[in-house]
């Protein structure tokens, strides 16, 4: 951190909040709130005189409230930049600090928050993680029993700069504990609180055990665990070392900690899995290795940066394996645990990768984006004719569309990611998506349904998930009905209702509307728009009297090849259940109703022409096939 502060090309803005992020890759406008420290950074020399003079003491949050600090303070001695700060919530305005500061005149009670706007090329988010508060787990008595502490409290107690200058004492009587227990998976791997594994706590428990054992070899340390996970290089050796120096490992998740109220000794009851017996051991002190959770303001940051969150609340990466450091928004990158719990080596690696990705942005004059961006037909946009609309503007998950009444909607191409949500939503068909224009998709539908359409299952698949699922079903040799005809669009949000109507108008037997699971969507909220539309269509078709099973909505991930095959087979079965004559009659009955909804289809630029050509090609090919 000190190195970063010394580097002339790096500006450290401490005590500053991001208020607003606008613009797009290479051209972000970021509004920052530089909070008032009431101490002038250009004058303060970090001499500590104000802090010594200050009469107010409040709990020190940096020390996990285990010690106190003054109202004029720095969180820790290595703070960068070393500029003092006056906590106005605690300050009583005695101005003793002003006196102590003397001729430096660094303290300025008239200071106010400053709003600054900066031009930024790329953003790296490294906001870290928060800690699970074990208070709701009443069985472990955190908060009730003074000698039950959290991992972060242990971190401060065991730190040579901490409140006890590095000597480990138990909070009830300030005596050194002789028997210490560390409980792993407190809150994590627990479906009641945090269902995921927090990744680094096993190693953290072992590290603490080794550190303490080295300092106090006579200390009895036990680690309670469900599984010990030491997957990286050198980790298993570290685990071995802990065993060598006498750390005890007990497999079994403690059910309860009880306390002797007189001595504050603690008793842990757990089943020793290897013994198959319930055991109770006595300890002087217990450390709860609590789960890693997203920062408390992660939701707020997610809204400010317009990046999605994965299940569990972490920031969602572009691709979990191939692009873990990229956010779905170009020019915003992730480093470290804000994207998911990870240890120091992984965070450093991701940080370096994010920096490299960001410098790629900073060093380019041009930026390549996906070619599937949206384009507005300005002459067709009703907003240009003075109508209030803005549907595309509201549909865009990236805020890439500018909408003003009286002007045609405008797509900011650099921000567009090509999901097609705007295209799917626009009721006037006045916006389209390159490479997935209405003409192109309709041509595909027409080709796929050219022969015996009543026997076909037309499957709309999204590029990222259900298409991958169908692929996997193929490569895994999961058999599914050969009547399935797949069609790829970028996102379920692009699956325009018109496309579905057209499929039924052409006499399709069944239509599958498939995409990602909501948490997997590659376009932030694209799937949500798709799901809403699918639900609407489902209801409408039911009212029209369509047989159940002819329209189906399924969310299938790229890993669910078995599910894709199963869904298609089920659809085939429900299609087979309808007698052929009845099915044909139903299709014929619904055709005019579908056609009624599609009267404007041919007015879409390019559609009429494309369909004429498709018909010509299909007829030619079918003719040849029949002749051969």
């Amino acid at each position: 951190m000190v190195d970063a502060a010394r580097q002339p090309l790096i500006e450290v803005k401490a005590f500053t909040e991001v208020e607003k992020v606008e613009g797009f890759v290479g051209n972000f406008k970021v509004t920052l709130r530089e909070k008032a420290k009431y101490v002038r950074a250009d004058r303060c020399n970090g001499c500590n005189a104000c802090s010594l003079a200050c009469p107010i003491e409040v709990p020190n949050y940096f020390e996990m409230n285990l010690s106190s600090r003054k109202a004029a303070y720095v969180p820790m001695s290595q703070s960068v930049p070393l500029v003092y700060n006056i906590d106005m919530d605690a300050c009583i305005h005695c101005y003793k600090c002003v006196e102590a500061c003397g001729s430096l005149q660094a303290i300025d009670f008239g200071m106010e928050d400053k709003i600054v706007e900066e031009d930024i090329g790329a953003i790296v988010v490294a906001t870290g993680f928060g800690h699970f508060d074990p208070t709701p787990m009443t069985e472990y008595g955190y908060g009730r029993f003074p000698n039950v502490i959290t991992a972060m409290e242990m971190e401060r107690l065991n730190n040579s700069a901490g409140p006890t200058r590095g000597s480990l004492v138990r909070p009830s009587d300030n005596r050194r504990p002789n028997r210490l227990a560390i409980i792993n998976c407190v809150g994590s791997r627990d479906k009641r609180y945090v269902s995921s594994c927090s990744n680094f706590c096993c190693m953290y428990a072992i590290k603490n055990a080794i550190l303490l054992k080295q300092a106090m070899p006579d200390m009895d340390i036990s680690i309670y665990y469900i599984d010990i996970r030491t997957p990286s290089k050198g980790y298993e050796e570290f685990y071995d070392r802990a065993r060598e120096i006498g750390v005890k490992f007990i497999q079994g998740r403690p059910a309860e900690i009880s306390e002797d109220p007189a001595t504050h000794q603690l008793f842990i009851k757990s089943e020793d899995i290897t013994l198959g017996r319930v055991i109770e051991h006595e300890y002087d002190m217990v450390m709860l290795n609590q789960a890693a959770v997203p920062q408390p303001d992660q939701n707020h940051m997610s809204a400010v940066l317009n990046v999605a969150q994965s299940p569990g609340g972490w920031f969602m990466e572009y691709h979990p394996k191939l692009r873990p450091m990229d956010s779905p928004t170009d020019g915003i990158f992730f480093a470290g645990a804000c994207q998911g719990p990870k240890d120091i080596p992984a965070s450093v690696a991701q940080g370096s990768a994010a920096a490299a990705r960001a410098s790629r942005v900073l060093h380019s004059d041009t930026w390549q984006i996906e070619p599937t961006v949206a384009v507005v037909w300005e002459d067709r946009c009703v907003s240009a004719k003075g109508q209030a609309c803005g549907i595309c503007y509201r549909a865009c998950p990236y805020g890439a569309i500018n909408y003003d009444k009286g002007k045609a909607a405008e797509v900011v191409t650099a921000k567009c990611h090509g999901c097609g949500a705007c295209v799917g939503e626009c009721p006037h068909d006045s916006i389209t998506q390159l490479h997935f224009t209405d003409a192109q998709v309709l041509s595909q539908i027409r080709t796929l349904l050219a022969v015996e359409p009543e026997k076909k299952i037309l499957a709309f698949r999204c590029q990222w998930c259900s298409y991958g699922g169908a692929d996997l079903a193929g490569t895994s040799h999961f058999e599914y009905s050969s009547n399935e005809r797949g069609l790829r669009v970028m996102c379920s949000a692009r699956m325009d209702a018109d496309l579905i109507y057209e499929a039924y108008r052409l006499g399709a037997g069944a239509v599958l509307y498939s995409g990602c699971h909501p948490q997997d969507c590659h376009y932030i909220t694209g799937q949500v728009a798709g799901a809403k539309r699918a639900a609407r269509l489902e209801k409408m078709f039911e009212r029209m009297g369509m047989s159940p099973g002819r329209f189906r909505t399924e969310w299938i991930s790229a890993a669910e090849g078995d599910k894709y095959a199963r869904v298609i087979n089920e659809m085939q079965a429900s299609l087979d259940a309808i007698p052929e004559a009845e099915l044909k009659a139903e299709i014929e009955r619904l055709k005019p109703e579908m056609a009624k909804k599609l009267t404007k289809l041919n007015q879409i630029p390019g559609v009429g022409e494309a369909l004429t050509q498709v018909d010509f090609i299909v007829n030619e090919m079918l003719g040849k096939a029949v002749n051969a």
Partner: protein
Amino acid sequence: MNQPLTESLAERVKAIPGGEMLMMCFSCGTCTSKCMIQEKLEPNYNPRRLIREAVFNFEESAFADETTWLCSACDLCYPACPQKIHISGVITAVKQLAVAQGKQSPYQTARVDEKSCVACGLCVSVCPYQAIALVEKKVPFRGLIPVAAVDPGKCMACGMCSAACRSTSIRLDQEFNDPDIVENLFSWLESEAN
């Protein structure tokens, strides 16, 4: 071991409502260390072990396990389970399968004295495990009459029926019948008085 997977004990337990979550257990042992029966009554009682036995198809030992028969479905373990498995549901499912195979609880269950039962139905209404039903039965010297019948697969021997019965026709054997309890009570009172 050669039987098809669908007929394995685990699959049969999963098919019974309550037993679905069986395979989610990662053997942390929280249920065992939370259990009051384990602590107060039977040290060998172990729900985690029973789940393992069911998962790995050790049918005989699962059906003979104390855990199968002693669980009172108090559900102390349920809110403690990090995998949210309804453990007493799984145990009840194993027990149902054991009963279906004709296995009987090695522990006592409530017993009806058919000579005096008047089929008032009080016991049926108080039983928390719905283990008692009124059935038509041919009773010696009384002919075909309705009497209470206890399902040993469901009875947990709590004694609610015995306490509710007005004709003392349903009771637990051994030390938990009325005279034994009264005797114990008096001996305890005497020892307190001295």
